[in-house]
Structures are given as structure tokens and as C-alpha cells.
């Protein structure tokens, strides 16, 4: 499969001598939905910056669809859409004008730019605000406007630097749905995020970056398989004063009618229900505790994990 992004031994040292990237290498396949995870200052935004040419690399090779971003910058930029971490449009301009103007920067004739702007503002639920100044939008809407702006030239590769930071749950989920749709339609997506649930829900492949180095680069599936424990939240019909003793399982009482049960990777969920039945506890509903990736992330960054690189 063609590579959307190829990065080899990329280094970046800023003027203040901060060595932000220490030889990272990455390969993102065309059509992928790829997550770049890391703590603040780990190097995620610098990597996105180098790809979008806003940050100048110190050394290394960076290619987008086989074209060098430095020597063939015009060609690579045509294929790129960038959603920055910070809102960076003119707040006094109208929503519609912001998107149409961006279309013009990519050579779209005015009529086509207007049609595309209407299409993406509609899809992102912003059309009823199209005639308003951008400053009147809510925080979540501003972030969606950044996405509409980045898509107006219909790039093959979309880079999203924390696209749902500060966005409420409802808007975040509808943004996820939208991103999944455009990914299914063929757009390669690379996102950086602090929301590990976001990466787990959306992405097929993942790289974790720490202090300018890639510590994990694998498929989401392979990464999650490395979890030693899974946690389930059970809503029970009766009310308890203390957690029941379940043979072979760790059980915590979160509130009188909610239990958290932990399973080792070699244990079966059926056995949990057998144990619960033996102590006369009926389960009303059950859900997976959504901190699985968080556990891994923390353990890896604490250098406790033993997951080798390039497992995918």
C-alpha cells in the first residue's frame, strides 16, 4: 500500500536549543486513521508542524505521498489539510468567508469554493452560522470551522492536532462520526489527541511519542491486546454495603448498586457471572471501563511497559 506519510530519522532542535524531536521514524499508510499520542511537549505538534512546513526540520526525511515536503512543498501542500491545535482564523471574518478564502489559497474558482464551503459547513452543522463573524461561535463550533476550512480543497491527507480539545461530549462524538465518514471515503487521517478514548475509538494504528522519541508504533488492536487486565462496570439490581468476594476476581463496590470487576487476560467473563450468581447478585447492565488505553499509556511513559516497537 502507498505511504501517505514517511518520516525517517527526523530531528528538530529549536532556536532555544530545545531538542523537540530526537530521530523519529514513522510510516502512515494511505487510507489509515492514525493516532499520535503523547504528553504535552512530547513532540506531537512539532511533528505535525514539520509535515505542514510551519516548522523547519533540523535533519531527516519527511515525505507526503512520496513527495519531499521541503523540495516539493507545493505538491505536498496540495494534498494536505491542517487542523491546528490553536484556533487561528480571523475572528472578525464571517464563517463562510473564512472557508471560501482558504479555497482560493488552494486555487479553487470562487463558485467551487463557495459550493465546497456550503457542503462542509452543512456537514459540520455550521451552515446556520455561515453569515456570522467567527468570534460569535462557541469553542466547539470554532474547532469544527477549522475542520471545514482544512477540507475545502478536499485533501488526501488530513492532519488534526487535538481536534476536539475543549469540546463537549455531544459535539465531540458527532465530530468523531464525521471524521470516520471522511476516512471511509478515502481521506487518510492523522490525529494527535489527549483523549485516549478518542484514539481508541477512531484509530487503527497508533504511535506514542515521549520526549521526542517514538516509544510505540503499532496497531491499536495489537496494543490493546497487551493489556493484562480489563475492567467492567456492572449495574446490579440489589444494593450492597460491601463488595462481594468473587473467587479469582478483584471486585470493588463503586456505590451500593455499582460494581467494578477486573479480569486478567486469561480469565473469562462467563466465570464472573457464575461467581455473581453464586452470591445471588443479579446484573442489570454492564459496560467496559473506558480507560484501557490510559493504563497502557501511563505504564509505557513510566517505562514500565514491555511492548516492543513496530509490532504491527
Amino acid at each position, binding site marked *: 500500500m502507498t505511504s501517505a506519510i514517511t518520516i525517517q530519522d527526523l530531528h528538530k532542535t529549536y532556536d532555544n536549543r530545545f531538542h523537540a524531536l530526537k530521530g523519529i521514524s514513522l510510516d502512515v499508510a494511505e487510507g489509515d486513521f492514525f493516532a499520535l499520542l503523547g504528553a504535552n511537549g512530547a513532540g506531537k505538534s512539532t511533528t505535525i508542524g514539520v509535515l505542514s512546513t510551519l*516548522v523547519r526540520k533540523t535533519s531527516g526525511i519527511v515525505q507526503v505521498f512520496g513527495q519531499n515536503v521541503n523540495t516539493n512543498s507545493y505538491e505536498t501542500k496540495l494534498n494536505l489539510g491542517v487542523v491546528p491545535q490553536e484556533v487561528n482564523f480571523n475572528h472578525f471574518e464571517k464563517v463562510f468567508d473564512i472557508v471560501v478564502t482558504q479555497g482560493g489559497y488552494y*486555487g479553487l474558482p470562487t463558485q467551487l469554493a463557495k459550493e465546497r464551503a456550503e457542503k462542509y459547513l452543512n456537514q459540520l452543522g455550521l451552515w446556520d452560522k455561515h453569515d456570522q463573524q467567527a468570534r460569535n461561535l462557541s469553542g466547539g463550533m470554532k474547532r469544527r470551522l477549522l475542520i471545514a476550512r482544512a477540507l475545502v480543497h478536499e485533501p488526501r491527507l488530513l492532519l488534526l492536532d487535538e481536534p476536539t480539545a475543549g469540546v463537549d461530549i455531544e459535539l465531540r462524538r458527532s465530530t468523531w462520526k464525521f471524521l470516520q465518514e471522511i476516512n471511509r471515503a478515502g481521506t487518510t487521517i492523522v490525529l494527535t489527541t489527549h483523549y485516549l478514548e478518542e484514539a481508541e475509538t477512531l484509530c487503527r494504528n497508533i504511535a506514542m511519542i515521549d520526549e521526542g522519541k517514538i516509544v510505540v508504533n503499532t496497531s491499536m488492536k495489537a496494543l490493546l491486546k497487551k493489556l493484562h487486565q480489563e475492567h467492567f462496570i456492572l449495574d446490579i439490581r440489589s444494593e450492597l454495603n460491601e463488595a462481594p468476594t468473587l473467587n479469582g476476581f478483584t471486585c470493588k463496590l463503586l456505590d451500593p448498586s455499582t460494581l467494578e470487576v477486573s479480569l486478567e487476560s486469561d480469565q473469562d467473563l462467563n466465570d464472573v457471572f457464575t461467581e455473581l450468581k453464586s452470591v445471588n447478585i443479579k446484573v442489570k447492565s454492564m459496560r467496559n471501563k473506558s480507560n484501557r488505553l490510559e493504563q497502557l499509556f501511563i505504564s509505557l511513559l513510566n517505562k514500565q511497559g514491555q511492548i516492543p516497537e513496530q509490532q504491527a
Partner: protein
Amino acid sequence: MSGISANYKLTAFKTIVWKEVRRFLRIWVQTLVPPVITISLYFVIFGNLIGSRIGSMGGFSYMEFIVPGLIMMAVINNSYGNVVSSFFSQKYQRSIEELLVSPVPNYVILSGFVIGGVSRGLAVGIIASIISLFFSGLHIYNLFITLMVVLMSSIVFSLGGFINAIFATKFDDITIIPAFVLTPLIYLGGVFYSIELLPDFWRMVSQLNPIFYMVNAFRYGILGVSDVNILFAFMMLIIFTVALSGFSLFLLHRGKGLRY
């Protein structure tokens, strides 16, 4: 080398220019009204009230003598002001990144901002010319020279504003140059007097002022009188245009203050 088409570049150029024009029209109270008030006051105070006591200068009434200089002053200030404030604001709020991540070549970016500045400079110049008609007849001696001088001066000062904005890191930086460099150069550039009135030393110093050539070349276009050789004035304008364009492109290429 750019592999993108001329049609693409033209679309991008028109987009930048239209965005710049839209900006100064949107904030017309800040961009178009103040020059109108200032110019009117100059005409009333210097032209009418004081000018009537000064008598003639260069063979014309004092009002007729200062009209070209005042129009040129408005063009220079507004061309410079438009580019420096627009580009710096975009840099400050980072909306310039919209352009930097797109495939627009640097020379198209520069041309777009410069023509944006020229548009405002000429718009204010036309308004100032109309106002001057209320105070003095405006007879143009040589239309071609008049238009070429005003256009080239506007380009030179738009480029100056662009360079100022590139180096600026805070809002103070975009007011320092206009206040401490541009305004003295304009006032000492022969807007209000002929350098024939100056002692030899100050006459020589005046000839080091680039605005002196612009004001006089423009005055020649309108009145047919000038303190300088017109050909030399044009040469100066061409040299400034080429040098400032080259320097601006160099700064864009280096990503000074824009890419890290």
C-alpha cells in the same frame, strides 16, 4: 520550483487581494475616515488660513503647491499602514498560517499584500484628490507621470510596511517606524515647502530622503514643477522597489518570524 499552474496562482493572488480590500472596507471608520479628516484639516489650516499669508511657492499659490504633497502623504501613510497592520495582525493571531500551509508561492503572497496596500493607498489618494477640489483646482500636467509616481510610491511603502510587519513581534513595533521614521521623512520631504528655501546643508540632507523624490515627482506630474530631475526620481523608485521586493522575498523564504 513551483509545479502549480498560472491559473492557480492568479486565483490565489486575487483571493489575497480581495481579502485585503474586504478588510479595509470592513473597518472603513478606521481606515478611510481618519485620512479624510486629517487631509481636510491640512487644507483648511495650512492651505487656506496660513497659506493665504505665505504667498506663492514655485510659481503657484501655496494651496496649489501643497496639494500634491498632501495627496502623496495620504497615499504613503495608508499603503504602509494597511500592509503593516494587516500582515502583523494575521501573524499575531496566527491566521497567516492559513496561507503558509497552502501552496501559494512567496511572491504571490507578497504581491497580494502589496496590491492590498496599494488599493487602500490609491483609494485614500482619490478621496484626498476629491477633497482638494473643494479648496483648489486640480490640473494635471502629465497624467502618465502622476499615475506612475503614485503607483510606484504606493508599492514602495507597501513593501516597507510588509518588512516592518515581518520583523515586528508586538504591536508597539508597528507604530514605532511610522511615528519615528515615516512621519519625519514625510514632513521633511518637501510636502510643505520647496527645498530652495533651505540652507545648502539642509538642502543636501533633504536629497537623502527618498520621500523627497516621490513628492517632487508627483508634484511634477500635477504642476509641472519639481526640485529634482524626474528621470532620477523614477530611478530611485525603481531601485527601492527592486531592493525592498528582494529583501521581502528573502525574509519570506527564510520564514523570518513565520516558520520556526
